[in-house]
């Protein structure tokens, strides 16, 4: 049964990749990449159970972290065209932040 879910997740990944490739706007592509990352986290966990090595979950945690940071970084770069802008709360801008 675990093999079945690995295959189904691979199909879901292929469909998401299709949306990422043909998304009409940039935001569709970012959304598809983000959801691709979430599914990759699930696939890593499933593969760990499939091969009898649940240590793969450490990689899944790491991938979840990288996925979130990558999404925010891409959106920030698209919006400001730079990584140098600091994102701070409005009421803290005047302090040392």
């Amino acid at each position, binding site marked *: 049964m675990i093999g079945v*879910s690995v295959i189904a*997740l691979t199909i879901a990944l292929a469909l998401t990749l299709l949306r990422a490739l043909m998304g009409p706007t940039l935001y569709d592509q970012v*959304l598809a990449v983000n*959801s691709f990352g979430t*599914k990759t986290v699930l696939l890593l966990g*499933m593969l760990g159970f499939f091969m009898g090595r649940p240590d793969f979950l450490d990689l899944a945690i790491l991938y979840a972290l990288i996925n979130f940071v990558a*999404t925010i970084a891409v959106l920030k770069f698209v919006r400001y065209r730079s990584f140098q802008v600091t994102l701070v709360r409005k009421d803290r801008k005047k302090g040392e932040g």
Partner: protein
Amino acid sequence: MEIWQDFVQGFEVLRPWFGGALCPLGATLAVIGSIGSLRFPDFYTRLHAASVTDTGAVTVMLVGMAFLSPHWLVFSKLIVIWVFLFLTGPTASHAIANAAHTAGLQPLIGAEATAEKIEVD
């Protein structure tokens, strides 16, 4: 006390079955989310289809893996992944939606959404 023992043993027998049922169910939810994100007409509606994957599929699959987990360390790692995905998932969705809205992408409202779909066909 004996009832408790029986309960624990029965749980140990049923555990692989629960896990084996919930994992494919969650994977099916992920496929449904992908199909939805391919079918829906504009960006904002695709966001809803993607959030099925972010919440439903993640929860069901992680619960299924928790039933299969051989050791409590695996269980705690699954909890960490679940909490992390539930904190970052809506934040990332909101960031993408807010960026699209700030950039001036207008959503299709009401009957427009389905009308355009027919036109495309």
